[in-house]
Every structure is written in C-alpha cells, then in structure tokens.
C-alpha cells in the first residue's frame, strides 16, 4: 500500500497525498465523479477503503425510509388545539391568512 501523507515528487511528477485527496473528497462525491478511475485510489488502499465505506454509508442511508407513524392521539390533539384556537376567536375552522399572502 502506498501511504502518502506528505507530498512526494518522483521524476518531477507530483503525487497526490492522502491529505490532498481527502480534502477534495466532499466535492468529488458531490459531483458524482467516477472515482474508480482516480489515480490516487489506484495506489492507495487506505483512501480506497475510505471511499468504499463512505459510499456504502450513503447507500445504506437511502434505505432508511420512515416506517413509523405517530400514534392516533397526535391527530386528536392537533384537531382539539385547532378547534380551541378557532373557538377562542368565535369563528368556524379557518386557517389565519396573512394580509399579503395568497396564491
């Protein structure tokens, strides 16, 4: 494994360090760049493992769809609160509309 914490120069060619690569990583993820072709990853198992893990975490997170509902009592409380608000104003159920609002 090539561990390149500090910049190295070989025959005039600058090698990207792990620090450089990881600095760029958020932007690389954001642009959905194809990281399999990245030169640094071809030679650095550590950064390759990091990328695999972060991609895996993001993939798994997408599967965490909401599966729980609030209990039925929540809607009952909301309805009661709305009716109380309206009752204190002495009118029918009607959301307050600010003067400047509207479609």
């Amino acid at each position, binding site marked *: 494994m090539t561990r390149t914490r500090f910049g190295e120069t070989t025959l005039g060619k600058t090698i990207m360090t792990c620090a450089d690569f990881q600095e760029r990583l958020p932007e690389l993820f954001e642009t959905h760049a194809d990281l399999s072709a990245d030169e640094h990853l071809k030679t650095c198992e550590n950064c390759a493992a990091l990328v695999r893990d972060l991609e895996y975490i993001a993939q798994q997170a997408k599967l965490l769809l909401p599966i729980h509902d*609030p209990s039925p009592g*929540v809607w009952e409380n909301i309805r009661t609160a709305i009716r109380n608000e309206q009752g204190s104003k002495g009118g029918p159920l009607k959301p307050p509309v600010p003067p400047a609002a509207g479609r």
Partner: protein
Amino acid sequence: MSAGPTESKPATHQHLRRNPPILGEAEAIAAAQAGDEKAFETLYALHKRRVYSLCLRMLGNVAAAEDLTQDAFLQLYRKIGTFRGDSAFSTWLHRLAVNVVLMHLRKKGLPQISLEEALEPSQDDGPRKDFGGRDLQLSGSIDRVTLERAIDDLPPGYRLVFVLHDVEGYEHNEIAEMLSCSIGNSKSQLHKARMKLRDLLRTGQRKETAV
C-alpha cells in the same frame, strides 16, 4: 435562523424525483387554505410519517417526537395560507418541521454541541483525515438498527444535515435554505457527518470482534 418557512426558488428535477407530486395533494392544500378541516386531515395523513420520522431521528424519544409533530402541524395550520406553491409542499412543510425541531433543541441547550457550532464552518474543524485503519471494512456489514443507532450518536448538527441529505434526499441548496446556512457549510457538515458515522460504525465493529 428564521422561525418559519418562506417561499423558495422553483424545485429542481432532482428534487421532484425525491418528492413526486401526490395525487390529490394540490386539491387538499387549496381546500385546507379555505378552512376545510377534512382537507387538513388529509394533508396530515399524507405527511405525518415523514415529519414524525424527522422528529424521532432528531430527538430519539417517541413522546417528544409526537409533541413536535403536533407542533409542526399546528404551525402548518397557522401558516398554510402563506404557501404559494413555488416549491414542493413537502419541502415547505419539512422546512417548517426543521424549524420546530431546531427551536426545541435550542431551548434544551443541545446536549452534545451547539447547533450553531456544528453548522458554523471552522478553519481547524475540517473532516478528520484518515491515514490508517486498514483492519476493517464496513461494506456489507451494517444492518438498519446499527446504522440508526450510529446516526443517533451523531452530534445534532451533523445528524440533521445527514438525515436531510442522505436519508430524506434533499439537495444542499434546499438544506442551506432550511437551516439558514451556506451551501458550502451544508456540504462540509455532511462530509463530517459521514466521516463521524464511519468512525462510530468501525468502533462498534471493533467492540463486537473483541467480544
């Protein structure tokens, strides 16, 4: 940060994929704006799960999450007249719910770190670099419960951005608007959150293998 949602720029195509139009939603919104209680109940039925899920993930407590879900929908009732349809209704409602959660966290003094601290970029607070640790690989090893638990252990600021982006599928520009922070800040927080999650998950794995 603002206390309530404001209209945003038009939704992107990416956004529409994550928040497809819901059949009957537009009619329910219009009717609820006119004061129809049944229509408001329909909106509640359509969106309660996502709002509750966000509250539950941010608070980790069923009773508190239900209280905030109630607060969020009461806010919706008070503000629905200001919704003009410039952005997806679910995004607009989510922004409102996020604000309810943020206000609650502020009142509680944020148990782990302050949200402002978490959301403010700091020059020496960049994502920790990883130059070692070749012993474990996460791929294929995390189940839902483990990941949910690790997300619960994230600091609130990281957790919020991670949930909004990676779980709920919001774009950075939408998150920036919801949290009144910059897009760069949202990106930075997301990266820190993922790095922190990796740490938490690897630490958990090490403990398991040590037993």
